Each structure stands twice: as C-alpha cells, then as structure tokens.
C-alpha cells in the first residue's frame, strides 16, 4: 500500500513538473501582459519614426491592433531587416510584424502566417540618368537591402545580364544614401516605400523609374516555427483584420493611393 502511494505521489509530481511546460508562447504572451513586436523602422510607410522619435506606420498600428485583440500591452522593438529572425529566436520579441516575404527557404526556419500585406516593386533612380523602365537597368550600378525579396530578384537579373553591378546594403537608409550620392544608379523597392521617399524629399532628385516585373511580394507575420498555437491565432487575426475592414482603413491611412492589395492567390488554398 505504502509502495502504491509512493508511485502515485511520484506520478503526481511528474505531472506537476511537466504541466507548466505545456504553456505555449500564446499563453506566455497573455500571462506576461506584453506583446513584443519586431518592427522595421526605416521602411516608411510600414514603419518609421515621427518628429518626436515615436514609432509610427502600418506595421506599428498592426502590432497595436494585435496587442489589443490579445488584451495586452504592445511593445515595438526596432529591428533591422537582417536581425528579424535572431530577435525572434533569442526571445527578444514574440512576433515579427516586419514585412517579411514568405519564401520557402525562410519557412524552414521561421513560422509564417497567411499574408497580411502585399507589395509591388518599382525602380527608384535619380533624374538625369536616363533610366525609364526596368530594362534600362541593364549595365547600371544597382543595389538594394541585402537579402530582401527585391534584392534577391534584382541580383539574379544582374547576374543573368552579365553587365552592371549589384551591391547589398544593410539598411534601407543606406541604399537611399548610396543612390542619392551616386554610388549606385538605381534600386528596386516596394512601391509604397518609393512613393513615401519621393514625397518626403529628404534625398534630392530621386524619382520612380517604372514597375519591376517581379511576382507580387506577399509578406507575412512571423513567429517561432514550432509555436503552432500562436501561428493559428495570428492567422485568424489577419483574416479578421480584412474581414472587419481594419486592413483597408490602415491602408488608406498609411498608403492611400489606389486599392488595398488583394491578399489571396486565385486558384489555390491558403
């Protein structure tokens, strides 16, 4: 009898030791009362800083909405493009609301939700260089933010052309600086960024040089790959943002031109 009790006690102890470990990231976020989002803040209008140095933009608002839905406080953690996954894996942030293109290569490492936004790419150049469309980039000095969707596409084309050059920079700001100084003659960026940067007028003489013939760049929220509970919640959240019209409202607020991009791909699920 005493022996039976011992086994029971051991089992109960084991259960108690195992059960708290079952709390997943979603539980942790709710329990901690804070949602930490990785947001890129040199990527207007998705993320940037206002005159008081406060983070603003589509992604910042998106993070705030998500925190509200979870019933917690939002904390925006500024994260440059290349640091998004390290920030996630090292536990500095809970989710990435950082315009992350959902490539299959990256999905081996991070967990992607359904797309929450979609970008079209345009050529950004300086006046007087005679670059009018994507084809006239042939043989020119080009550059972009290392590792982004548009950088991979542009570098591939430059290699295929066999003339001209490609430089990968670490931040979007450095790309604009290099372009305005003439280190590079053209870059390819998302149409939203191009519109914002030309309108802002901080860099003199920048102008759009027509559309880039790439696939649509669908971007998703990211979380740790094994946090299926959190990813499920995020998927539903993205769906609800569109369903409730909040997606369109945010688009009108931050981008404004034309229609909010369609987030579905015809002819296939998910």
């Amino acid at each position, binding site marked *: 009898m005493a022996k039976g009790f011992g086994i029971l006690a051991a089992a109960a102890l084991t259960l108690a030791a195992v059960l708290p470990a079952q709390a997943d990231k979603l539980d942790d976020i709710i329990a901690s009362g804070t949602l930490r989002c990785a947001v890129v803040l040199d990527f207007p209008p998705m993320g940037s800083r206002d005159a008081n140095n406060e983070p603003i933009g589509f992604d910042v608002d998106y993070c705030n909405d998500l925190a509200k839905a979870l019933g917690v406080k939002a904390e925006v953690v500024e994260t440059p493009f290349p640091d998004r996954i390290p920030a996630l894996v090292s536990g500095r942030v809970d989710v990435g609301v950082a315009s992350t293109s959902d490539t299959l*290569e990256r999905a*081996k490492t991070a967990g992607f939700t359904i797309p929450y936004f979609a970008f079209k790419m345009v050529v950004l150049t300086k006046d007087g260089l005679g670059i009018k469309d994507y084809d006239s980039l042939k043989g020119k000095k080009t550059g972009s933010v290392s590792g982004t969707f548009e950088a991979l596409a542009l570098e591939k084309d430059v290699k295929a052309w066999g003339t001209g050059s490609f*430089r990968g920079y670490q931040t979007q700001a*450095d790309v604009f600086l290099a372009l305005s100084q003439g280190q590079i003659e053209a870059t390819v960026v998302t149409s939203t960024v191009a519109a914002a940067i030309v309108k802002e007028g901080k860099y003199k003489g920048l102008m759009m040089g027509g559309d880039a013939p790439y696939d649509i760049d669908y971007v998703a929220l990211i979380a740790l790959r094994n*946090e299926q509970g959190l990813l499920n919640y995020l998927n539903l959240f993205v769906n609800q943002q569109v369903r409730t019209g909040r997606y369109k409202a945010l688009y009108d607020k931050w981008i404004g031109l034309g229609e909010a991009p369609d987030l579905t791909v015809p002819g296939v699920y998910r």
Partner: protein
Amino acid sequence: MNYTFHWLPAFRALPEMLWGALVTLEIAVLSMVLGVLFAVLLAVGASSQYRIFRAAAVSWVELARNTPALFQIYMAYFGLGSLGIHLDSFVALLAGITFNNAGYLAETFRGGLRAVPQTQVRAARSLGMGQIQAFRLVVMPQMFRIVFYPLTNQMVWAILMTSLGVIVGLNNDLTGVTQEYNVRSFRTFEYFALAAVIYYLLAKFVTVSARLMAWRLFRY
C-alpha cells in the same frame, strides 16, 4: 532555445565561404602592406622639422587611433561619396583599414625606434659606420625585433576589421558571403558559427606562423 540546428545546408555553403575568406585575407594583407608604408611615412613625418608634415602626421595618427574603424570605413564610402568621390566597396574598406593600420603602426614604429638606445648609434658610428649603415645594421634589426609582435597583432586586427565591409555593401568577403546566406535562409547561428571558426583559424594561422618566423629570425 527554440531552435534546431540545420548543419547540412550550412556545410554546403562552406566552399563559397572559403572563397570569401580568401578575399578577406587579400584585403587584410594589402591593408597591412600599404599600412606599413604609410606608417613609415607618418613616423618620419611626425619627427619632421616642417610643421605642416608634423601636423598632418599627428592628426592622421590621432584620428586613426581614437575613432572607431566602423566610422572610418563608413566615411571612406559615404563620407567621400557625399563629396562626389565614389570608391568601390572593396576600395573603401581597404582604404578604411589601411588608414587605421597606418595610424596604429606609426606609433608602433615610433616606439620601436625609441626603444633602441641612442648610445648604440654612437657606438656604431665610432666603429666607423656611416649614418645609413648604422641604421641598417644596428638600429633596424633591433627595432624589427621589437615591432614584430605588435605587427602580427595588427595583422590579426586587420583580418577581423574586414568584417565591417558589409556596412558599405561588400558582399564577397567572408562576412559578406555569410550575411547573404543568413538573410536568404534565416539560419543565422549555423552560418555565423562557421564564419567564426574560419576567422579563428585565419587569425590563429597568422599568430602561429609569426611565432615560427620569429623563432627562425630572432635566434642569437
């Protein structure tokens, strides 16, 4: 940690990373050769009787030693760029590290020269050697012995400083290649771990071969 290592794809990147290491070594060696040349000029300039040379040499050394290498490289690329001088990423990185090396080595050489007692020159001269002969046969060998280890140190520094090339868009050195793989696949830890091992081996190679060289060269 919520991360499972994927070593196999990382090892597939190894050949390209080793080519990157070659570029790294190339930049480091070039920057050392140029750095030594400039350092000698600076050491001579610092003890020149003309004020302008002294001022130029001193401000170079002060700037090189008291500002971050990151800043120096950034300035060589974007700083000169704003003046309309466009250096290639490779050249900008080389210029930045050379500037840094020259500043540190100038002080090393100055210290090395000081460490050889003046009495030795006098002794050599009294044996009938000319000024140049005395410098070449008596001062130089002793100075070389003193500056040899600081030189190897600087070489190791130069190798490690080449990793700053990514900020000016260099993508074919070891860090550049690593960063490309990293952002493409998000496998940060694997690629950076491999890069760290390669940097370690490069640096170790320099120090060990320097020790062997010293053992051969500096026997009494």
